[in-house]
């Protein structure tokens, strides 16, 4: 037993780790119990095939939930899909879920959607749990005080076969954002700012614990937006300590504890929150008042600037960075030293597991009413789940989007990674509420992505160019 002075508390990460650590493996990693496993069609078929090959069963099938999101068309949903590969993948997922006894939220369920939106929406994502999914944006679930890992297909196989995985313990970096965010600055700006400042690999080896005034005030959906992009900063996991906001969100959801179980669960969840004097491996502080609407200009999410800033000039940058900056500017066809404001766009994409939730569409709808997308701009709005889509329609939000010239689509990942028919063409530049601006990410090898908040996407769609939403909507 290690001696702990009374003032030395533990982090949520340590507490959750302790609850789930089974044993140390010979190579020093931990065999970690995964309480909740989420599955989608792209990274799971090979895992199920491996199980069959090895003659293994799914060890705890009721702890795995599946849905279809990556390849799903968002316009025409009649089966068979026009893309035979996509059609084969959805059929494979159905077959695997039936054969292995896994709950599957199919198209007809009304609960289908992006796996990271469906989990929270259904109350499957809960505090103090471990969650794994074959998708790097699994960190989203950390918004509830869960420790959530994106994993590869072999690990999906491991979790299916054993409900555990091999992983090394992470260090914990506390990221405080204190003060008040200026008007027109959103959760998306906060995480883009954090990644810009700490770097795309700054989080290697860490779980990020987000806290401070801004996170205390954030809604669950805002917390999810931030946790979602932890991996873009190199952090394998990111989380926010559970509080009243968390419990209020979870109350009454389909898989949330009910009746007498609810009170017990809340007491347990509270106990997982980091202690006031928890010891962190690192602490970083940001001042909320300094953050402006932030947009990426390059080919990774760390290459970001405030909307008021100018593009970098490689010649004046540290020598170590010049090649990267030049490559990014060339791909983006942007001129060094120019303002990003005023850059023409051709496509606007609103959706994804980062910003495809009800509050994202509600916030944008406030500004879209009575306005219209600029001529020639293709603007698509893709709700993150059938639940989000239905809620928007009940509030008349779909009508506002349609009247403003947006295409109103069905739920899926869509143009975030363009595995379905929603793709950029040629070197189109897309104002996007998604999470990655890698070369070719949105389906065209020469396509260009500028990441920003949903309201900034709407502003760009209306202006036909990247613009400061605070001015346009003033």
């Amino acid at each position, binding site marked *: 037993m290690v001696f702990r002075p009374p003032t030395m508390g533990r982090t949520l990460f340590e507490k959750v780790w302790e609850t789930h650590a089974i044993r140390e493996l010979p190579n020093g990693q931990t065999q970690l119990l995964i309480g909740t496993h989420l599955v989608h069609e792209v990274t799971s078929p*090979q895992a199920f095939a491996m199980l069959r090959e090895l003659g293994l069963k799914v060890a705890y099938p009721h702890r795995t939930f599946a849905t279809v999101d990556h390849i799903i068309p968002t316009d025409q949903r009649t089966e068979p899909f026009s893309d035979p590969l996509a059609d084969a993948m959805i059929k494979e997922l159905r077959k695997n879920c039936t054969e292995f006894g896994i709950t599957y939220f199919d198209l007809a369920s009304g609960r289908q959607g992006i796996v990271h939106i469906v989990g929270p929406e259904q109350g499957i994502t809960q505090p103090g749990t471990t969650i794994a999914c074959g998708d790097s944006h699994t960190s989203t679930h950390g918004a509830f005080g869960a420790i959530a890992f994106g994993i590869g297909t072999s690990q999906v196989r491991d979790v299916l076969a054993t409900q555990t995985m091999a992983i090394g313990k992470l260090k914990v970096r506390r990221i405080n954002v204190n003060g008040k965010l200026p008007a027109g600055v959103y959760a998306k700006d906060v995480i883009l700012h954090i990644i810009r400042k700490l770097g795309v690999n700054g989080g290697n080896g860490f779980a990020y614990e987000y806290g401070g005034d801004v996170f205390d005030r954030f809604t669950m959906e805002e917390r999810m937006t931030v946790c979602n992009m932890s991996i873009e900063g190199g952090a394998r996991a990111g989380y926010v300590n559970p509080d009243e906001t968390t419990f209020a969100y979870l109350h009454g959801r389909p898989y949330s504890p009910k009746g007498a179980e609810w009170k017990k669960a809340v007491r347990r969840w509270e106990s997982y929150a980091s202690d006031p004097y928890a010891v962190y491996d690192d602490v970083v502080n940001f001042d909320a008042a300094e953050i402006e609407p932030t947009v990426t200009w390059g080919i990774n999410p760390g290459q970001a600037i405030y909307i008021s800033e100018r593009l970098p000039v490689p010649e004046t940058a540290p020598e170590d960075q010049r090649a990267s900056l030049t490559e990014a500017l060339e791909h983006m066809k942007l001129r060094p030293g120019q303002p990003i404001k005023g850059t023409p766009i051709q496509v606007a994409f609103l959706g994804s597991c980062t910003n495809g939730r009800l509050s994202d569409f509600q916030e944008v709808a406030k500004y879209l009413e009575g306005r219209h997308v600029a001529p020639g701009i293709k603007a698509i709005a893709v709700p993150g789940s059938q639940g989000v889509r239905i809620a928007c329609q009940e509030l008349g939000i779909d009508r506002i989007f349609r009247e403003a010239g947006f295409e109103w689509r069905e739920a899926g990942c869509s143009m975030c*990674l363009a595995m379905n028919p929603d793709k950029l063409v040629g070197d189109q530049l897309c104002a996007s509420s998604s999470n990655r601006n890698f070369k070719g990410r949105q389906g065209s090898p020469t396509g260009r992505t500028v990441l920003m908040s949903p309201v900034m996407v709407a502003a760009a769609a209306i202006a036909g160019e990247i613009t400061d939403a605070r001015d346009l909507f003033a």
Partner: protein
Amino acid sequence: MALKEIRKVTGTCLPIPGDDIDTDRIIPARYLKCVTFDGLGEFLFYDVRFDENGRPKPCTLNEPQYNGATILVSGRNFGCGSSREHAPQAIYRYGLRAVVAESFGEIFFGNSTTLGLPCITASREDLAKIHQIIESEPKREMTIDLAAGSIQFGDASFPASVRPSAREALINGRWDALGELLEGRKLVEERMAQLPYRF
């Protein structure tokens, strides 16, 4: 499960210069539409190698002097981005058997190790020298010694490091954890019975 002990990797090098080479670049998302990993090697770095009409672009993968290379050498934060195991699968199935870089994306690192594809870290300065040597002498063989933590590159040698857990797993033939995880079955059952949440 008896796995090969991976102590050394020897071969010529394929340079992929630059930092932050992400998994979308390693294997574009459209090639993830598959229910098996077979044949993925063909699409490795597809959009770096070919233009929209399928014509080869200037790229080290299209240069004959790098044919048959088994060690990929890159820069900082190699394999950042998505969790797609398709990325290391494509690298492995193309015929590469190790990656040397300044640092790696976390999930890519784990996925690669699980396939028995060692990810070796070298310093930025040493990588610059290694890239220079590859350019001037593409057929020079490199030997990575995982146990010793060294890279021998002709008459030049460089320190190399591999995260201890990955090194242990690779050199002792334990890189695929499934067998060990299954051995813990009894302990898992016991813990599962105490787990306070269930569905």
